[in-house]
């Protein structure tokens, strides 16, 4: 049995990150895309915490993770508001149909 170390956390974080990216690229639903973003943010949080636990002497990593969680909460609020507005304007929350940025 291999003892759990830093590489395991990093691999987990990378897997989460890739999954987040994958979600963002493939899902059409704007809510699902937001979920992908949350995944990415949490992958970053795992990295922060893991690096702090195995390397640094202070708690900067943990602090950054908490800060990211707060920011993610704000971001989710703003993004959900955007999605609501989007729906109100175009009766859809599909990101493939909302291509007004093209104009």
């Amino acid at each position: 049995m291999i003892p759990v170390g830093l590489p395991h956390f990093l691999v987990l974080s990378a897997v989460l990150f890739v999954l987040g990216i994958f979600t963002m690229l493939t899902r059409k639903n704007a809510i699902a895309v937001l979920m992908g973003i949350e995944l990415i943010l949490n992958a970053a949080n795992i990295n922060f915490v893991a690096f702090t636990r195995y390397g640094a002497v202070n708690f900067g990593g943990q602090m950054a993770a908490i800060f990211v969680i707060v920011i993610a909460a704000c971001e989710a609020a703003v993004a959900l508001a955007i999605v609501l507005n989007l729906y109100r304007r175009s009766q859809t929350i599909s990101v493939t149909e909302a291509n007004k940025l093209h104009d």
Partner: protein
Amino acid sequence: MDQMLLLALVALGLPLLSFVLVIFNQRALGARAHLISVPALAFSLVLSIYLAWLKLRPGSMGLRPFEWSADWIRLGTVPGFGPVRVTASVLIDNITVIMMVVVTGVSFLVHLFSIGYMRGDTRYARYFAFLGFFTFAMLALVLSSNLFLLYGAWELVGFASWALIGHWYERPGPQRAATKAFITNRIGDAMLFTGILLLFGQFHTFNLREIFALVAQGLPITFSFLGCSPETTLTIAGLLLFGGAVAKSAQFPLHVWLPDAMEGPTPVSALIHAATMVAAGVYLMARIFPLLTGNAMLVVACTGAFTSVLAATIAISQTDIKRVLAYSTVSQLGLMIMAIGAGAVSAGFFHLVTHAAFKACLFLGAGSVIHAMHRVLHERDDTATDAQDICNMGGLRKKMPITAVSFVIATLAISGLPLMAGMMSKDEILAGTAAYGQLQRGIASALPFVGFGVTLLTAAYMWRLTFLMFFGKPSRLDLFERIKESPRMMTVPLVVLAAASLWIWFAINPLQAESGRFLANWVKTPSQVIPPQTAPSFAFGILLPSTPSSGPMPHQLALAAKAHEWAGRSVWLALASGACGFLFALWLYLLKRSRSIGTLRISALDPLRQFSLRAWYIDVAYEYTVVGAVLLTSRIISWADDAIVDGAVNASARATVVTARILSLFDRFVVDGIVTLAGATVQFLGLMIRSLQSGRIQTYLAWVVASVIAIFVVMWMIALPPSMLF
């Protein structure tokens, strides 16, 4: 002394003033141009006569000349040559003053005559302007004592003759004649100029007297032309100067211009033949005579003799009055040149002066007749009849008595009959030639026979002309009835000139010219300055004085003595030959009335007659050789111009066009291509990049991810050492 200089310069300046005033006011003056020209010439004549009187009166300076000179152009010192300067100098000696009287006298009378003759001419003022210019040029020529100024005046004379011979330049004949006269003279001018430069190159001065003094000191060894010895070079220099005289004084082979110059107005012919143009050559020979070596003298004498025979034989068959007179001038000039070549310079110059009087009289008389004929023909609207053809005349003495009498007097003078100035001068020439022929021997022995033969021929053709014009029965009665004597303006000059042809002006005794005032007091043959070994060969037998530097050279003394011996005999011989010619003409043309075209109708003589009528075919020969060669050369050059020079220009133009085409292709395909390619590339890239901006956020995100991965991979490959890569 200064008084003489002033007189001479004013006499010189007046004709020039007349020229300037008239030529710049042609339109304003119109038919009144003579009101300026004639008084100017009259004053000039009066001044010349006064000057001559001052110089020639008994007890004046005698033969001593008066010379004045000033530096005109200083060119500084030329390396290897020495100081170069040109002086403007005036020489007034007896020859000069006599020439001045002759020139202004004849010119004045020609001016007077022209008032009548040229009335109503389209370029009346221009005509008078150039008469004045001609006179000025000739006066400048006789006044200058250095060769440089003389050459300048020489060219001005040539130019003036060109302008006057071509007075009626609308017609092709005068045009051609003027050009011919000018070009023929250019040949002589080139030789004269070469001769002048040859002397200047050695002696560093243009002044004739200085040159004579330097030559008299002995020829330097450096005096060499094309490697010839100094003596030969002196002969060459003399002959080159003579070349100028050959052209100006119409000697064979350059005599061809003079008969053609008859295309000019008749008074101009009188001026050219008597005083201005042809006299210049003889005058030049008289001036440079001291430089002529024995060989040069022989060439000069033979040229003159041949020319006089040639022209006399041509004159005998011509039917145009002016052509007869023209050839007679050539013949008389030949006699003068022959006399100068034979060492009888004073006799030659004497003949120049007497000839000026009677030849001007003959020409103006001919002009008077032509004028009368023209008027009649004009009244009858007859353009087919030639006003100058003697076959259309005859018996004119009844209608034109004054012209006839003066013409007869002048004919007496030219044919050497007694009581005439012409006889005296001709006798002197014949005596001098006889002396030279006897002493020189060889080919020169023929010269006296030439002289007497030409005297005979001269009498024959001149009396033929006179008889056919003024005596006998009129050949065209219809014209004859209407002929009238010319106005007084034209007859007065004739009378004056006829009077000037009498003996009394030159000597008291008409049979002894030698002791007359002209030869005894006025003009002496100048002493030669040539080295003794170049003197004529007969001088070798004579004891050489120890100091030959001044006074006549031994051979000249011998010639003079011999000529003096001959003088008594030659008078009678010349009279006899002149009388023979006169009687021949009298018998043939007056008594036998051989009119047709005035020659014997013997078929055996016909080729000879043709030969004479066509002037020995010399013009034809020149046409085929010289003119033909020049035309051929110019045609070849013109072809070369067209084919080679123009061809080269055209080829270079074509090459430029082709290059331009190639450059244009390069421009279109390469330069434009690059520009277009750049544009197309940008457009293509733009198209590509535009396709990226789909507006779909997920696509953007995919690009971002791909880019980050790509950057990461690249940076990873760059940043890590190779050992850690794999």
